[in-house]
């Protein structure tokens, strides 16, 4: 036993054991339970454990599920695009234009010092009917009636999520920009590329891994976000997670909720893989 622990394989097993056990018990096992539930049926307060595809059939044929799933994916895509587009210049600035990198990175994490829920609530205060934005516009005399399109719709959901997730895009893009060998940029200049050409043909392709990482980190969790749409989404901004919550809560139909969770997971996986393939191909093409 002691001998085995000294071998490479033994050391590897020991080192990975805590994480494996953790993932096994807290991710794999619950996922297994979720899969099992998705094949069962809820009959009022009891669970009928006869295996059936009925839940999947319902999820596939119900236009409501399709509608909410599509909306969730579109909202998450909009959040991802907005966040990455806004994060890139900041990451670029930190990587190339400043020497106070630590200070800037610290500043970027400041929003995370307050709770996620509080940040969502503060957006409600900013965008609300008599909120900061409307009061400011009215006192400046730009509008006479409060704007109502600011809150309780998809726009508010995208805005809130893009703000909340910004650091998750900045950090990976920053890391990939930081890694770029500066001599490559010098070589590009020596070979006669303008600054813009140099950016498009050298810097941008080399930072694609960072963009992909940032996009996935934002896209995957935001598709399933529950709190933001329920607080600022109103009646037009609900997403698939809200429907899943209804199944586990008021509707008391855990099997259907489990099925919807798995369907959402599969859709997210599918879109994410598609995105990685496309982005990688695009990155190579520019080069």
């Amino acid at each position, binding site marked *: 036993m002691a001998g085995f622990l000294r071998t490479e394989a033994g050391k590897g097993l020991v080192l990975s054991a805590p994480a494996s056990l953790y993932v096994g018990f807290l991710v794999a096992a619950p996922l297994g339970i979720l899969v099992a539930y998705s094949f069962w049926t809820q009959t*009022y*307060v009891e669970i009928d454990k006869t295996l059936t595809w009925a839940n999947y059939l319902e999820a596939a044929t119900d*236009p*409501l599920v399709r*509608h*909410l799933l599509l909306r969730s994916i579109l909202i998450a895509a909009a959040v991802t695009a907005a966040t990455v587009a806004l994060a890139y210049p900041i990451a670029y600035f930190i990587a190339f234009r400043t020497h106070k990198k630590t200070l800037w990175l610290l500043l970027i994490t400041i929003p995370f010092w307050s709770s996620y829920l509080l940040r969502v609530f503060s957006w409600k205060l900013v965008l*609300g*009917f*008599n909120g900061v934005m409307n009061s400011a516009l009215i006192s400046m005399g730009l509008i006479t009636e*409060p704007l*109502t399109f600011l809150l*309780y719709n998809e726009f508010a959901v995208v805005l809130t999520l893009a703000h909340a997730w910004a650091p998750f895009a900045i950090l990976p893009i920053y890391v990939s920009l930081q890694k770029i060998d500066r001599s490559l940029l010098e070589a590009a200049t020596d070979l006669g590329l303008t600054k813009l050409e140099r950016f498009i043909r050298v810097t941008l392709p080399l930072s694609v891994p960072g963009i992909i990482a940032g996009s996935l980190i934002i896209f995957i969790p935001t598709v399933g976000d529950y709190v933001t749409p*329920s607080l600022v989404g*109103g*009646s*037009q901004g*609900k997403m698939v997670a809200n*429907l899943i919550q*209804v199944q*586990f*809560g*008021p*509707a*008391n139909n855990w099997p259907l909720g489990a099925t919807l969770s798995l369907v959402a997971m599969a859709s997210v996986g599918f879109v994410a893989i598609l995105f990685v393939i496309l982005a990688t191909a695009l990155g190579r093409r520019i080069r």
Partner: protein
Amino acid sequence: MKHFKTVLAAATALTASAGIASAEAASLSVFDWSGYEDQGFYGDYVAKYGGAPSYTYFGSVEEAFTKLQSGFAADLAHPCTDGLRKWVAAGLLKPIDTSKISNWDSLLPQIKDVDGVTIDGQTYMVPFEWGNTGLIFRTDQIDESSVSLQLMADPAYQGKIAIPDAASSAYAMAALATGASSYTDMSDEEFQKASDFLRQIHPNVRFYWSDAGQLDQAIASGEVLMGWGWNQSELNLIWNETPAKMMRDVDKGIATWVCGYVHLNSSTQSDEQVYDMLNALSSEPSGKYIIENWGYAHANADAFKSADQSLIETYGFADVDKFFEGSLFFDAVNPELEGRMLKEFERIKAGF
């Protein structure tokens, strides 16, 4: 000196016994809405056990049900009548022995009779507080004589109304608006009419509120001019001096909810302690306290006689009997219909 020692010993003994008593008091666990840990609600229990029970909170009756179903244990819980059939079917509750409730005969008969307090001849709940769900409107924007449930469908109020994100409450409102005979046992045709009404008002809905504070603020700011809500919201608006009130005309449609305490099957404390708490909750002083300080109606009829009459008037409970005759009660919905309501309501909210 000897005298001093005796005093000291007595004081120590007293402190110790108070310590034991409050530990014993806290051993009773209550699963409740937040706010109900107020000691004015169960003064007799505090007097006997020297302290308060321990409280755990839920945000909605559905959340409470889900948590109890997944194995959470407590002695007492505080649901409302409309969801109770499911609780009984899931085997969560012990029947209440009404002979051990000393205040049982003083409780308002109309409240005691609500379907859900008693299910299939067995009593499961000691009703505690009740109140109204009705249409709260801005009196400075909408004329009292023209306000009605049907007005919510008027295109002039686009984005100016709010209703609860709760299927049973929304359907109770729709049943009243469309003239269904009852909401717990609607016919297919009545159900269709009620669903159509909810679809019709959907474009006017600014948001489906999930916490009452959201509704209060929206009415206070004028973001929303009409909202289907609890009397708690009306009170908050009165205290905030917002020109708003609840439409209390029974012919135009108003509902009455009843909530109370149930004895859970997972209870581990002695029946004596559980029933001491139930008796404290249903007593007249508790009722007087909740009416005067919270503006909620209590189940104990005697409390209405002893409480400040001008406050009762302000809070809208002056003519209790008239109310009971004309209002819709949140009875325990039949499970099959409840399932259909939930399903249809999700579609309506998504614009289908």
